[in-house]
Each structure stands twice: as structure tokens, then as C-alpha cells.
């Protein structure tokens, strides 16, 4: 028998029991609770009269529906206010720590989990949100679940699961100038497709990982779900351990030493076997942007809008035609000639301090193009405060960006931040689905640097030429 992978090790350490059919009951260490997926789960718990098994395993925060303006005022009465209030009430009722909107610890679940030290290597962590794979950047087994599964975690602290196959994405080489992890993950999705990781737990490995900060690793793992996989992990190393150390909820003292000793044993064994491997030569990558309505419809920024007439597969041709029509594009048009109306810098993919630094460096001393409305939404209050301490808010404001409070904002358009029909947005988020940023809105996914470059140029632009 070969050695074990990182995924195997964390999985094995959490199996409560195995059933006859090969599924396992998996113990869940940590659960992040947000306002959208939890009301029905709490309701189920209440209706069945069950108790919440372990309140100390959960933290709750409202991130999806919250406004990013006027944080100092009460929420206007309405659906969003009711949803936030429901989360607050449920948290109080079941004695789960709740982080209010105006609190210094508020933010998007996938940004604050790591900031707080709630996210730890070797832990199982879930959330009723598909981008929970973000936390895999710490070597946690982290995955998104539905509301019914949230209820299972509330009541039993377990989930019945079947083990996934293992897939390794081997990233080799240093990042060329102007290329970020966002381009790496977009390139991977373009290569294997949005269903490419289906049934597999991804592990990102290879020499590139060593060059990446912990924050960049989160961006990488974040979009594993767009590659079809609920799980995307990276083995913890010194970068990871340094990031976790001293965080408010991280272990300390003797407990820290014990934890670190275990974390160092988590990386995949040299003889571990993967069911599938995908290789990416990072040193040959160029910046990427999406042109269509699924993340796999992504191309190097130097390319042109594809021509369906050249596509021989009829199903793919139809799909391509549909995307081009929705996006209002012309086949053969260079991507860098696509004009934009809006820019969104933020989300759990690219709303961290490093992302804002990269974007600020591009816009410093420049102006947002006349026709463009651009906003920056920090991923958390902590990120916002740090950015303000570094003067990044001024850089953005002087360039003509709006500087907002933390939340999901225009990534999902559940608050007032959304595109109007036909508007086109350069966005650092993770999904370019039809209507994702507002009914009839058109989304182009890209890195923070590329979004900043687009804001200045007024059209999609190659960061390597803008700098």
C-alpha cells in the first residue's frame, strides 16, 4: 500500500465510523454560520426539538446580505434586516458567538475564519457556502454544504460522506510578472472545465506553492469549487504556521507546540498515490480573463472572443453562442477592446489585504476612466482597518474608487451593490454566471491587478502593458 495524501490523513483522523456501503460518518470540528444558509437549518433543529450538540464549534456572521454603505446606521426594515436579525436571534438562542456588522471582527466568513485563527491545519471545517474550500489553504479538510447538512452538523457534529478520489494539481515554476494566483486558478479551470474536479479532492502542490503567501494560497483554494471540486487543499508549511501563530483563537503555549508537531506530519507522503494529476507550468502563464458565463470560459487576456463558427462540437458551439449573446460580444474581437462600465474589487477570492495592495499599486496616481464606476469592498473590517492604516483607502479614493465596508457585496448582489441590465463589470470575484452580479449584468473575472488596470483603461487591459 502506498503512502497517504494530506486529504487521507485529515479524513482518517475524523472518521467516527464506517458504514457497510463504504460511506463514513465524519466528525466536523468547526462550522462557520452565515445568514443565507442557516435560517432553515436552525428551523429544522427547532422543529425537531433537538439540541445543538456543541456550541463552541460554531461562529456566526452575516456577510451576504449586509450593506457596504452606512454601516453606522440600523439596517432599513426589509428582507435583509430580517435575515440578519434571524441569525442574531438563532445565535443567541443556541449560544453561538455572533459577530455583528459593525464589529471590528466582521467580514466574509472565508476571510474572517483564517483571520481569527478559527481555521486550523488538520481540522475539518464546513460552512453552508460553496467557497468553504478556501480554508483548504491551511491543510484543513474544508468544504461547502447545504442547509440540511448544516442542520446535521448542528445536531450531530457529523456528516455522512463518501471519500473522494484524490487529484493533484502540480504547479511548477515562479509567477511571471503580472501573473497572480488568480490567473493560475482561472487557467486551471479553463483547462479542466467547471466539472473537471468532480468527485475529486484537489491537492495543490509543486514548487510554485513555496513562492505563495498564505493569502495567495487562499485565493487558489477558493476557486476549487469552480473547478468542480468541493475540496482544494495545500499542505501546511512554515508560511502557514507563521500565519496562524498568535491569532486570537489559535492554540498557544504548550498546546501550540503539540499542534504544530501534528501539522508538520500532515503533508502527503512521498509515495502517496493520486488518482489523477494535472500539471501546470506557471512560468509560462499570462494574465487571464473570463469572457463568457461560466468560469471555464476564460482565456489569456491577449486572446480574442472565440468564434463559434470555428467550434466543431455542436453542443459546445451552442453553449458558446449563448454566452457570447448574453455577454453582448462579437466573435473575433480582441479581449482588450471590451469596454467596461463597472469595477468590483473584493470578495472572498480577492478581498484580502495583499489583493488591495496589488490593486492600489496599479491605480496610485492615476484616475478611473470617465465612464467607469469602481468600488473596493474589503473582505473584512480587519482588512479595511489595515488598508486604511497603510493609506490604501486614500490611494483608491484619489483615483476615483468608492471605498466601502466589508461584505460579499457585488460578488452575489444580494445587497444594493449590483449591476444594471447590460452593464459590464471587471470583477475580482469568482463567478460570472448569468445574473450573478445583477439581472442582465455581465461579469469578467480577473485578478485585482487586472481589475485595477481595467478601471484605469476603461476597457479590459493587459496589466503588463498598463504598468
Amino acid at each position, binding site marked *: 500500500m502506498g503512502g497517504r495524501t494530506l486529504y487521507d490523513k485529515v479524513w482518517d483522523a475524523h472518521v467516527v465510523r464506517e458504514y457497510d456501503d463504504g460511506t463514513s460518518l465524519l466528525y466536523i470540528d468547526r462550522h462557520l454560520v452565515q445568514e443565507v444558509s442557516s435560517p432553515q437549518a436552525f428551523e429544522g433543529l427547532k422543529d425537531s426539538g433537538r439540541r445543538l450538540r456543541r456550541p463552541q464549534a460554531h461562529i456566526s456572521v452575516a456577510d451576504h446580505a449586509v450593506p457596504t454603505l452606512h454601516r453606522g446606521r440600523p439596517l432599513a426594515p426589509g428582507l435583509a434586516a430580517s435575515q440578519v436579525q434571524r441569525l442574531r436571534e438563532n445565535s443567541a438562542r443556541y449560544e453561538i458567538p455572533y459577530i455583528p456588522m459593525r464589529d471590528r471582527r466582521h467580514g466574509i466568513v472565508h476571510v474572517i475564519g483564517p483571520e481569527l485563527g478559527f481555521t486550523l491545519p488538520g481540522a475539518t471545517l464546513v460552512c453552508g457556502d460553496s467557497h468553504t474550500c478556501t480554508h483548504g489553504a491551511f491543510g484543513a479538510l474544508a468544504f461547502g454544504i447545504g442547509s440540511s447538512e448544516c442542520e446535521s452538523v448542528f445536531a450531530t457534529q457529523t456528516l*455522512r460522506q463518501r471519500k473522494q478520489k484524490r487529484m493533484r494539481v502540480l504547479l511548477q515554476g515562479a509567477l511571471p510578472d503580472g501573473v497572480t494566483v488568480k490567473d493560475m486558478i482561472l487557467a486551471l479551470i479553463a483547462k479542466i472545465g467547471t466539472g473537471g474536479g468532480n468527485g475529486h479532492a484537489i491537492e495543490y502542490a509543486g514548487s510554485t506553492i513555496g513562492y505563495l503567501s498564505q493569502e495567495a494560497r487562499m485565493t487558489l483554494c477558493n476557486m476549487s469549487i469552480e473547478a468542480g471540486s468541493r475540496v482544494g487543499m495545500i499542505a501546511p508549511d512554515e508560511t502557514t504556521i507563521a500565519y496562524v501563530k498568535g491569532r486570537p483563537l489559535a492554540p498557544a503555549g504548550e498546546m501550540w507546540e503539540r499542534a504544530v508537531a501534528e501539522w508538520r506530519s500532515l503533508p502527503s507522503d512521498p509515495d502517496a498515490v493520486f488518482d489523477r494529476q494535472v500539471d501546470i507550468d506557471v512560468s509560462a502563464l499570462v494574465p487571464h480573463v473570463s469572457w463568457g458565463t461560466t468560469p471555464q470560459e476564460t482565456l489569456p487576456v491577449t486572446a480574442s472572443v472565440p468564434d463559434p463558427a470555428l467550434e466543431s462540437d455542436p453542443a459546445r458551439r451552442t453553449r458558446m453562442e449563448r454566452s457570447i449573446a448574453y455577454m453582448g460580444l462579437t466573435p473575433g474581437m480582441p479581449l482588450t477592446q471590451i469596454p467596461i462600465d463597472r469595477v468590483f474589487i473584493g470578495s472572498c477570492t480577492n478581498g484580502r489585504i495583499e489583493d488591495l495592495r496589488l490593486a492600489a499599486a496599479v491605480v496610485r496616481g492615476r484616475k478611473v476612466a470617465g465612464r467607469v464606476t469602481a468600488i473596493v469592498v474589503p473582505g473584512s473590517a480587519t482588512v479595511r482597518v489595515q488598508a486604511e492604516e497603510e493609506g490604501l483607502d486614500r490611494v483608491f479614493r484619489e483615483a476615483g474608487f468608492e471605498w466601502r465596508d466589508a461584505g460579499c457585496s457585488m460578488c452575489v448582489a444580494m445587497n444594493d451593490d449590483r449591476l444594471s441590465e447590460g452593464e459590464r463589470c471587471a470583477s475580482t470575484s469568482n463567478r460570472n454566471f448569468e445574473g450573478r452580479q445583477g439581472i442582465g449584468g455581465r461579469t469578467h473575472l480577473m485578478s485585482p491587478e487586472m481589475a485595477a488596470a481595467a478601471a484605469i483603461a476603461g476597457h479590459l487591459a493587459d496589466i503588463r502593458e498598463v504598468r
Partner: protein
Amino acid sequence: MESFTRLTSAAAPLPEADIDTDIIFPARFLLLLDRKGLGKHAFHERRHRKDGVPFVLDIPPWTGARILVTQANFGTGSSREHAVWALADFGIRCVIAESFGEIFYANCFKNGTLPVVARGEEHAAIMSEAQAGREITVDLPTQSVVLASGRSIGFDIEPHRKRSLLLGLDEIGSILADDEPEIAAFENRHRGARPWLFLSKGQLAYFADTIEELG
């Protein structure tokens, strides 16, 4: 949970890949707190197009269809279980596709909805029956999709999921009834081996000074 055994109905054809959960249930309706009555929002944008082109579920004979036949990667994207609740409330209890988004797939089973994977020629045969407006039967006990011609196409399903659907079992209830002692024993061992994974009251006092929420 409502049980699922056998379903005979017209099958609505949706010959498109990558139908994501934002299309099935647009995000702005996620503000609703209830899981009931969401059917009216299913495929909202597709059902209310400006150009008036009707959606397949609004065209006879598919208006009352309880089965949907679509292509690869159905339910990709967001984890929102609302997508399944809305489909079920609309009347769709079975989706046949070449593949599914993983979270959507898991969510189906929690709500008495059967996702069926069919590929290649078999998928094409089912799709063409759907497009012809003929009824098909989905039979869970024999794990087969039966076409009007009598042709039967088998499908796979995890045994425990099949059982849950057939009996309308509540999985949480089963875990609590059957596995509680093992969970407790595991929890003890786990706490001994990895105590740092268990936050103490002292650690959680970190949140003692959170400010009041407004309004």
C-alpha cells in the same frame, strides 16, 4: 422527508450544460427565510424574459412535468439548497443529467428529490423522449428509467441514499438513533489527541466585547 419510489410524467427537456444554481434560484430570493413556497422563483429569469420567449416548463406538455432532463454539470456553483427546494416546490422531483454539481447532488437526497446520471447514447435517448413530449417513468426500486417504447435504462445510486429516499428517512434522526454512542466516544478520543481543535470558554471570551447590532 417525502419518500420517492416511482414517478411517471412528461420530462421537460433543457438541452444545456452548466445550468448553475444562480439560474435555478437567483440570489436575490435567498433573502427569504422559509424553505416552503419557493417554486414561483425557480428559473425566474428564464421564465420572465423580456422578449417573451417562454421557458420549457411553461410550454405544454411540460407545464406539469415532474422530471427535468438536462446536460452536464447541472446545479454547479453556489451551495444554496434553495435550488432543490424551489424545484421540488415547483413539482420537479427528478433531474436526469450527464453530471451534477456535487453540493446540489447531495442536497437533492435531503429533500426527496432524485438526481439521475445518464451518459452517452442512453442520455441522448432519454433527451429525445423528453423533447418528443412522451412520458417517462423513473423507478427507484429497480433503479431504471423506462421509456414509452419499454426500453429500460439503469442508473446507479448509493445504497444508503436509495434507502433514505424509498423510506423518506430523516438522516439526522438515523445518526442520532444509531451512532450517538460512537460520536461521543470519538469526541472524547479526539479531544484527548487534538485538544486544540476544541475551543474553550476562555478562548471564546474573545468575543465578549462584541458591540451591539443596530436595529
